[in-house]
């Protein structure tokens, strides 16, 4: 079976991280978190990496966390320690290079929180965005309660987080949840354009958000 997250660095210094569990709509499980952690550390430590692009294989960027694994952590304190020690989202927020998300299909839960840790978010028209955690008696826990109200107007963020209801590309563009929406056939080209733009800027480490 192919790895659930793929990693490649091209000769321009663009690292591409691909969520690759299309049969589960790229639901992020613990094995994928481990791979993300490993690849993000490589992005931080590899001197050639000048930008990172996140994408999802199949019909969705990511439908969120893998709920079938919920409740398997040994204890609350152990879970807390593990999160602080392997803080995938915190590492994304502190990388010194620009991060670009290529979004399509569904970006739900962690599948939206991951792009919220990026600097540029390009989406295919018709993509649905939601933080539906409250429908499970839960709250967003990959940073979404903090990154969303710092990305879009906080009142709009409160609506999304409290109702758990999805919005489309029109609302997402209106509030700056995404940088750009393009037809499906133009998504790769639009992402390339954004990557070209960030690579053309003279290299200077990005001020860390964390």
């Amino acid at each position: 079976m192919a790895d659930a997250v793929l990693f490649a660095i091209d000769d321009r210094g663009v690292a591409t991280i691909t969520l690759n569990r299309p049969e589960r709509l790229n639901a992020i499980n613990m094995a994928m978190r481990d791979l993300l952690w490993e690849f993000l550390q490589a992005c931080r430590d590899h001197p050639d990496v000048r930008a990172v692009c996140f994408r999802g294989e199949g019909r969705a960027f990511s439908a969120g966390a893998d709920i079938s694994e919920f409740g398997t952590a040994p204890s609350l304190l152990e879970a807390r320690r593990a999160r602080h020690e392997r803080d995938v989202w915190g590492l994304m927020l502190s990388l010194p290079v620009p991060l670009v998300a290529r979004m399509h299909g569904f970006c739900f839960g962690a599948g939206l929180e991951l792009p919220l840790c990026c600097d540029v978010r390009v989406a295919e028209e018709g993509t649905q965005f939601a933080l539906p955690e409250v429908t499970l008696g839960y709250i967003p826990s990959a940073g979404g309660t903090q990154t969303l109200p710092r990305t879009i107007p906080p009142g709009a963020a409160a609506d999304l987080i409290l109702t758990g209801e999805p919005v489309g590309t029109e609302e997402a563009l209106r509030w700056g949840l995404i940088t750009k929406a393009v037809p499906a056939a133009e998504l790769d080209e639009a992402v390339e354009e954004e990557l070209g733009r960030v690579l053309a800027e003279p290299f200077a480490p990005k001020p860390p958000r964390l």
Partner: protein
Amino acid sequence: MSAIGTLVLEEGVSADGVVEALKGLAERGARVAVVEAGEGDLREWPGERVRWLWRDYPLPVVFAFEGRLAGAEAAFALGCDIRVCGEGASFELEGVAMDDLTARRARTLLGLEAEEVMPARFAATEALERGLVSRVAPAGSAGEAARGAAEAVAARGPIATRLAKEAVWRGLDQPLEQALRFETDLTLLLQATKDRAEGVRAFLEKRPPDFTGE
């Protein structure tokens, strides 16, 4: 007691009266409050009451208005969590008693830096653009649209929506690093609830969850 508590702001009602009514809804088991702007204006709505709404009142509050929203009702609306208006409505900040707490809340919602001038008035489309309201309904249906949003909130885990409200508004005042730890701790607190276990179980069994607030 229905899961959705509703209040209509009548002319001349005091801030204390509205606070007591909202507390009553929470005590009687409502999971979300809908407040509709009425005819005329309330009496004063001072900043510490505006802050009480977003910071201390446990239930999510959805505010609905049609026409011109101004004065004390506009101040009240700033303290709510979700704002919904009808087409043709306007949100007027000019004339709102802008004490420091109210001004800070308005600036937070509008994402204004300290040196930026606060606009005086927002037409519905502009209020939506700026996120001062998150839904615009056909004229005359703001109340219905607000109840629609409230029904969604009421169907969610009630502890989760209370903690989500706290995470969003109290988190915004914290540096990002601290705010992310705050979110983690609220998440772990929820992991200890029956509702969260029920939410996951219901999802895996492909049935609607039955949240009890435990």
